[in-house]
């Protein structure tokens, strides 16, 4: 084993970064299509709804793969954290899975029949499922930040009703607001004409909604979760991320004002990167924070990881696979660039 190039704690750190990057990828990509889903019922006409669906049509499937891969990366790199997380959050994960199934199915089936009741049924399911997924993800993050009680083998000792507390609720609502904003900017970028103008008007309230919930969640974190800000207190240069985050958010309405939709969307992406970076810095090195005894019982990247050899194999797989994934994902987004139009192959 001495011949392996990297030290255990270095490669554990690298794989943590890789895992966070997958989460960021998922949040940016599935974030906008969940947002489009939440916004779905705000449009009343069938044509607008079809435009919205088809703006995410070719890509939503691939976007969900980021969640699958992030799950796989956690399982492979930090099996203890994966096992603790999944068995502790049993009920929320089951609800999330049901949401993902219904969402996939509604996109696929909605436009297969012309009857109004049929389309309305799937529209409500689609929007509802998107909302539940976004809120559920936020609640899970809120609980990971607050921590859950664990025993010495990493088994959850609390009850699932304890997951629904004020702080988790705040993070849940913030996630919904974040995806709504991100989704509305994406829609604006992908549409033209009358619908585009409508979306322009809808972006501003969603930005304000997001900023408000972000404010609440930040105050909540400062008051209830002091352990999240220790890292930034110890290393003040991390505060730069907060500054970039604020500038990115402020830049969104500015770009929209000048009609530069793509740049507004990129600013929104930067916002998501900053938010998850702050989460990753605050949590480090914990993957699942033990609220009853953080020092000894938390599952960290150091005590919950796979072996040195496996982490090397994973890194190799990632080094071969990720450039491939990024190159053909970019090609696909390039081919489907430009504004959405409905044709015979549309949903």
């Amino acid at each position, binding site marked *: 084993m001495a011949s392996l190039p990297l030290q255990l704690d270095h490669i554990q750190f690298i794989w943590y970064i890789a895992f966070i990057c997958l989460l960021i990828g998922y949040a940016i990509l599935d974030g906008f299509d969940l947002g489009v889903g939440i916004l779905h019922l705000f449009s009343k006409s069938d044509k607008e709804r079809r435009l919205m669906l088809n703006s995410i049509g070719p890509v939503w499937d691939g976007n*969900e793969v980021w969640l699958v891969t992030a799950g796989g990366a956690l399982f492979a790199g930090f099996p203890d954290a994966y096992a603790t997380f999944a068995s502790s959050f049993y009920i929320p994960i089951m609800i999330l899975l049901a949401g*993902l199934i219904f969402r996939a199915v509604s996109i696929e089936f909605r436009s297969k029949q012309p009857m109004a009741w049929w389309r309305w049924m799937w529209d409500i399911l689609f929007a509802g499922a998107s909302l539940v997924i976004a809120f559920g993800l936020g609640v899970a993050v809120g609980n990971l930040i607050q921590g859950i009680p664990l025993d010495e083998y990493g088994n959850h000792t609390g009850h699932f009703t304890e997951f629904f507390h004020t702080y988790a609720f705040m993070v849940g609502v913030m996630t919904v607001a974040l995806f709504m904003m991100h989704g509305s900017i994406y829609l604006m970028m992908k549409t033209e004409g009358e619908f585009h103008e409508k979306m322009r008007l809808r972006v501003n309230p969603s930005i304000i909604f997001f900023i408000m919930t972000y404010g609440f969640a930040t105050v909540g974190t400062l008051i209830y979760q002091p352990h999240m800000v220790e890292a930034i207190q110890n290393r003040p240069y991390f505060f730069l991320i907060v500054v970039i985050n604020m500038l990115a958010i402020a830049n969104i309405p500015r770009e929209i004002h000048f009609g530069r939709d793509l740049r507004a969307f990129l600013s929104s992406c930067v916002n998501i990167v900053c938010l998850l970076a702050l989460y990753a810095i605050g949590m480090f090195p914990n993957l699942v924070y033990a609220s009853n005894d953080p020092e000894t019982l938390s599952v960290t990247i150091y005590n919950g990881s796979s072996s040195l050899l496996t982490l090397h194999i994973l890194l190799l797989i990632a080094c071969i696979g990720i450039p491939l994934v990024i190159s053909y994902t970019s090609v696909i987004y390039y081919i489907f660039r430009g504004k959405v139009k409905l*044709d015979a192959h549309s949903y």
Partner: protein
Amino acid sequence: MDVEILARLQFAVTIMFHYIYPPLSIGLGLIMVIMEGIYLKTKNPLYLDMAKFWTRVFALTFAIGVATGIVMEFEFGTNWAAYSRYVGDVFGSALAAEGVFAFFLESGFLALLLFGWNRIGPKLHFFSALMVCLGAHFSAVWIVVANSWMQTPAGYHIVKNGPTMRAEITDFWAMVFNPSSMTRLSHVLVGTWLAGAFLVISVSAWYLLKKRHIKFARASLKIGLVVALVSCILQLFTGDRSGKVVAQYQPLKLAALEGVYETTKDAPISVFAIPNPWEDRLMFNIAIPGLLSFLAYGDFDAEVKGLDAFPKKDWPHVGLTFTTYHLMLYMWGGMLLAAVLGVYAWCRGKLETSRWILWFAVFSVLFPQIANQAGWISAEVGRYPWIVYDLLRISEGLSQSVTGTQVLSSLIMFSVVYTFLFILFIYLLTQKIRHGPEMKEEEETAYHSMEVYIGEKHG
């Protein structure tokens, strides 16, 4: 009911439902590539229609496959946390490779395949079809490797003790090429081709019976029949290899599959029998003497270990293992018969008029589905009492913090959601079949599109 049986039941329900779809997508993926390849070669628009139609069916099976597949990935952690901790170092890497190499490839190029008819050139479109097909096959590779490792573990060592004990990789390639992985992979892949081929055969035969889309149906049926016949013959070899691997590494499973209660030399193969669980013997047994010894060890006199060589508490459910295994074999017989009859009628030029052969072909779609499900049940139930063979018992793999009530409620949820999903799937599949290969809506004929060749041909 206790958590263990509920968790096993939930895994069985979710994996069996999931496994209706991936075989169809892998098999249809292959057929899609063949059809589009023929179109590129011959420029005959008929094959373009065929490729388009089967791509739409593919998309339906793929969408449900993805949605139900995400469930599987998280279920390892939710219900089998202790197992996940134990195998994560080994099993997790295969799963991560699947995500990176298979799913991204499949879902990415599927976008081009479905929505790119008018956006990309025919050659790039064919390339996308090839990539989707490849991605679908890769996804089978990694998950079968992971499952085979649970049957015949290799390339690992055990570290730590007590509840923190786990397996760690010592040799990645030994883990990937464990004794059963390539054999089982070939068996599984040929099984998926059969699933795809018989769906095509069934739908085409139905069109011929109803005298609709005759040209389309005839051409599709022929492709389906060729793939089916070749796969049926291949399956004979992969099945034989799989049996030999089971005999070598999992003698208890072999005994349960074949209903061998007592260790015997020149062991027979039973063609038909009903296992009697009270007296531990086979009833109404019709058997060919010595054949099992020969097939398993290449010698009619070889000794085959019976169930009596193992403690009774470790026996798998013999009735279930034996019955599903034999059901799989009968289904293979049914598929071979359907394929041979179809090819026979084709050679005599009577494909469209042999009504009873066509009706048989319509129902043949069920054979590979039943065979795939039954084969997996016998393989997985036959692994009992081990979750990882000879290393970790099923009871040791459970999540410690999950209660029976939680599992029961999620089991009920999945049963309801999946029943609903299955009805929808059948409904939409029927809709697509009724609608047929013709596209009613007016199609854009952009310059860079598959239609280009048709344009050339007609003008």
